[in-house]
């Protein structure tokens, strides 16, 4: 088995395609993609915030103070429109927004009550129009509200109580780790499972259907080696490739987030990682091993069945959905590691990983989940061995 595994690994490491998907892509391209997305997103937001906006006001005479305040902002430019259809002007980007004021817009609050300002804009793309408009409007509104309170003779303390009669002060007794673990812990198995599956797919296609297509499988069957050993050698290679791919990507992301992240993000990452004990990291890795074994056994069975590399890839593509669904269940709010969910394969491992991140894992339960996953992986591996011994599968 080890001899077969050693040869398979040698071949895999010489395959540029495998090296690209397993090592180069996670190490360089993923961070580059995420970095580029982050860079261009923040650039687009900054541009939207600083862009000079052309606007017009309908009924400006009803609230000249507001109109003047808007016009006084450097990046807002007041335009005059005649009888033209202002909606068309917004559509053809002559104007960015139009404010429509009612006759009572600048009346005293105690006299006119609540008033409505219509803000017309094309809100389909990224823009910061409402935010920038509200910034100006809020300053004026707050002043008017303060005037109204003063006219009513309400003290500052009373004003505060009227605006917010009850303050609910939440005192969270959960530890900080449990807090952010609940929020981001579910993403850990999501990331690990999919990366592991992705990393195992290429070698699986190559070691089963690929060998069949190239005629090397028939040659290998002539070697004086029990077929179980052949399957075990291939299975171990695929499982290892999946684990390595997941680990390389996680390592790469952590490394790149430190390199390209800002100082706040660094301290946050270090804070998060620092709170998880080595034992929990090791347990997460151990939980990944039977999961990778399940993937490897299923992928190898599919690959052996397929007549060609292409056919194997098409089978494997549909497998992704069967992996995503149990992880998505684990991400759903209210789904906890108890009752029936503790026995659903993959979902239970995903939930256990989340609990490990949160620091709230019941280790006795973890043994049960680990054992049940190992049993499933063993059963699938046994099927894979049986499958590999079928003539109708090998010589389809």
């Amino acid at each position, binding site marked *: 088995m080890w001899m077969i595994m050693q*040869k398979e690994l040698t071949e895999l490491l*010489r395959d540029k395609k495998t090296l690209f998907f397993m090592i180069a892509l996670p190490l360089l391209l993923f961070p580059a993609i995420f970095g580029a997305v982050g860079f261009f997103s923040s650039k687009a937001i900054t541009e939207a915030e600083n862009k000079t906006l052309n606007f017009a006001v309908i009924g400006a005479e009803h609230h000249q103070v507001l109109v003047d305040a808007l016009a006084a902002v450097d990046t807002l430019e007041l335009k005059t429109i005649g009888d033209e259809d202002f909606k068309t002007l917004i559509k053809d980007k002559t104007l960015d927004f139009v404010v429509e004021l009612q006759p009572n817009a600048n009346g005293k609050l105690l006299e006119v009550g609540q008033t409505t300002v219509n803000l017309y804009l094309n809100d389909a793309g990224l823009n910061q129009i409402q935010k920038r408009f509200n910034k100006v409007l809020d300053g004026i509104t707050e002043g008017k509200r303060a005037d109204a309170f003063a006219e009513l003779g309400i003290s500052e303390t009373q004003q505060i109580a009227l605006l917010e009669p009850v303050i609910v002060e939440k005192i969270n007794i959960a530890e900080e780790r449990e807090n952010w673990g609940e929020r981001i812990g579910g993403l850990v198995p999501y990331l690990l499972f999919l990366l592991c599956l992705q990393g195992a797919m290429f070698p699986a296609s190559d070691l089963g259907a690929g060998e069949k297509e190239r005629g090397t499988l028939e040659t290998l069957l002539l070697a004086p080696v029990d077929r179980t050993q052949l399957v075990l050698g291939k299975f171990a290679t695929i499982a290892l490739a999946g684990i390595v791919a997941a680990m390389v990507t996680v390592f790469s992301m952590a490394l790149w987030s430190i390199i390209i992240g800002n100082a706040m993000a660094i301290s946050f990452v270090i804070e998060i990682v620092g709170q998880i004990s080595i034992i929990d990291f090791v347990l997460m890795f151990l939980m990944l091993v039977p999961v990778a074994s399940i993937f490897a056994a299923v992928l190898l069975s599919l690959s052996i069945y397929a007549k060609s590399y292409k056919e194997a890839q098409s089978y494997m593509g549909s497998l992704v959905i069967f992996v995503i669904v149990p992880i998505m269940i684990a991400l759903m709010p209210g789904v906890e590691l108890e009752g029936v969910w503790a026995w659903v394969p993959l979902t239970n491992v995903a939930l256990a990983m989340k609990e490990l991140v949160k620091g709230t894992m019941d280790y006795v339960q973890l043994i049960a989940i680990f054992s049940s996953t190992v049993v499933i992986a063993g059963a699938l591996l046994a099927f894979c061995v049986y499958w590999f011994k079928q003539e109708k599968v090998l010589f389809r």
Partner: protein
Amino acid sequence: MISVNSLAKRFAVENPKKLTTQEQNDPRLKGRFFYSVEDVSFKCEKGQVLGLLGPNGAGKTTTLRILSSALKADKGEILVDGKNVSEEPIQARKSLGFLSGSTGLYGRLTGRENISYFARLHGYGKTQTEQRIEELSSLLDMDDFLDRRSETYSSGMKQKTAIARAVVHEPLAVVLDEPTTGLDIMATQTVLDFIKNLKAAGTPVIFSTHHLEEVAELCDLGTVIDHGTTKFMDSIETFKGLGTSMNDAFLNVLKGA
């Protein structure tokens, strides 16, 4: 010695509607099963070379796959150096050197690594493997390309490497499935010379081919399989006597003349 007795192998037909008219009319199609091999027998003793002949689809490859223990026979018996292939497949494979129809080399490994891998699977140690590879490299004239990745090889280089891999463990019997197909004259001659060397060393050799002139040059025995049944099994001299030429003799056997 290789002995094949009354071999039979059938395959379930998964979808009869997909069969061609020719396949539907083939007498080997019986109900849900297609008898790829119905009754095949032949024998090759030490120092003999047996030419396995037959038209495409006759059952040669299935017979050889059973012989190599890649497939299991439904009926009959194959003995390789006295070991029953069905009962002791691993022992039988140790005694047998087999070259399948495709060269089946690992493209990302060098020729040396390809051969070495199989030597190690046969239980050879490092030094023993290296010595054996040097010996085969010299015999098959492989020194120039042995340490290059086999994906860069020509057809001749691939075939030489595949042959070296098939015999690296010094088998007691050798089976070669169309070893000269697609080779140029020089490479073909190297392969034929290698078969002669095996014969001279007393190793029984079975080789399937469509080149009757190679059979005439090398073989002591001839076997013709058609429709999964042995139609002829005798000395090559007897075979030659069945027609005015090798081709004529072959056609006469198929016609049952």
